[in-house]
């Protein structure tokens, strides 16, 4: 299907965390195709990051790529400085980086809890705080937090992951209230199960259960979530903030 001739993110500068694979990669490609300049972070998979960079190039853009963990405050600070120097500012932040582990609570060690909460919640806090300073100075911007159906709808899921995503919904609501005065919008996009996302290690019975309860009867594709994300952060959507939008095929 051909893209719209109009690029809905033309001239915008976007930072996407966790861009080397999965949904993050789809976001990088879609945002680039919609005319945005894209910078993305990744944790350790150099090959995947290079592939995303190549895909962005194909979509018509030169992505800035940073091997920076979202939990590293200082490295994040240097990265944001670097991007702001190159681009003059960041208009769109997508907090996408997240991890999970398939663990029952009885086997969940304190380290496991910290690992998931640090990446999924503290990482969002640190990245957001760092990027917000520039957005407040320029009196505008959009922050899109990638949440999850786990964290919004009651369901079986790893406890720490579910808790971390529920925190992201709360963070979205509170932050939206606090930064609206600067013209900054904050939205949470909560996908259901995606083709190859964090649910790829899902036990068969839970996948079958999802498909059974999903109105559209299939898992979601990265591309369709990225397309919605591009609309949500675009200039066409300027009155939505604090909202958590679910894209799950109707579970």
């Amino acid at each position, binding site marked *: *299907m051909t893209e*719209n001739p109009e690029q809905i993110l033309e001239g915008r500068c976007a930072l996407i965390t966790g861009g080397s694979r999965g949904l993050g990669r789809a976001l990088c490609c879609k945002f680039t195709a919609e005319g945005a300049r894209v910078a993305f972070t990744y944790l350790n998979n150099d090959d995947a990051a290079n592939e995303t960079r190549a895909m962005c190039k194909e979509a018509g853009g030169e992505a800035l790529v940073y091997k920076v963990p979202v939990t590293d405050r200082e490295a994040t600070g240097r990265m944001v400085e670097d991007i702001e120097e190159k681009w003059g500012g960041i208009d769109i932040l997508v907090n996408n980086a997240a991890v999970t582990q398939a663990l029952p609570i009885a086997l969940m060690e304190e380290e496991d809890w910290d690992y998931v909460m640090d990446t999924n919640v503290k990482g969002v806090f640190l990245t957001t705080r760092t990027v917000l300073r520039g957005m407040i100075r320029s009196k505008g911007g959009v922050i899109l937090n990638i949440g999850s159906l786990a964290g919004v709808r009651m369901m079986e899921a790893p406890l720490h992951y579910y808790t971390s995503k529920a925190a992201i919904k709360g963070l979205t*609501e509170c932050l*939206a*209230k606090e930064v*609206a*005065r600067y*013209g900054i919008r904050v939205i949470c996009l909560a996908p259901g199960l995606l083709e190859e996302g964090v649910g790829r290690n899902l036990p068969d019975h839970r996948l079958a259960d999802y498909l059974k309860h*999903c*109105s*559209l*009867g299939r898992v*979601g*594709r990265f591309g*369709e*979530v990225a*397309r*919605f994300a591009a*609309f949500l952060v675009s200039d*066409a*959507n*300027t*009155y*939505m*903030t*604090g*909202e958590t*939008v*679910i*894209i*799950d*095929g*109707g*579970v």
Partner: protein
Amino acid sequence: MPMKSNPSQSLGCLVFGGSGALGRVVCHALAAKGARVAFTYHTGGEVAKELVKELPGSQALQLDLRSVTEIESAVDAAADEFGGLDAFVQCAAVGVTMECSGPTSHHLMSQVDEKGWDMMMDVNAKSTFFAVRHISEIMRRNNGGNIVLVGSIDGVKPVPAPVHYAASKAALQGMTQAMSKELGEFGIRINLVAPGILEDGISRDLPDDLLSEYIKHCGLKRVGRLSEVASIITWLARENTYVTGQTILVDGAV
């Protein structure tokens, strides 16, 4: 992109309440994206005439939403024109059911009589049910489509509102959820866009004191523009493939 009723042509969209403030902007937004538009109106004949002029090729259908027969005829007329239906947007609604004593009078429960209640429920909720019931039969035949209902913050969040209006809009949320379950297997997606207070339309009925209260509690400190709501309605009608059963608030963070 969603499956089209007729792949050689642009999307065929039916908009209820096209002569209303929001409906008109939605019709424009859909047409601007290349969709073929049919819309209904009730008393807004003049606006409907203008709209047809503004959107060459569009079709205006007069309709009293209290008549299920008229609803089904209007749907059939649009479907005949387009050879099916790809999207349906329900913008038609009433906000008040009686003559208010003045523009600043609060619409209290004691002022809602049985006639007012029935009118509200018939126009806002019952009409939507029968419209979707009929439209979904047509959409099933062309492998699916997108349905977008327009709700209100009044039916989602606890805010001062005419109770029968809030109830009718909350009914749409329940309808959206249950319909998404029933219609998903046919490739039909249904969602509810719930705006906060807007610059025009039903929001004009709001008394001044409640309007300032709203702006005070709204994060963005302003009412919404019709275009800001029409844009997500248009996205859901044209581009949506995996969102269904959702209520999406567009209220500037109240």
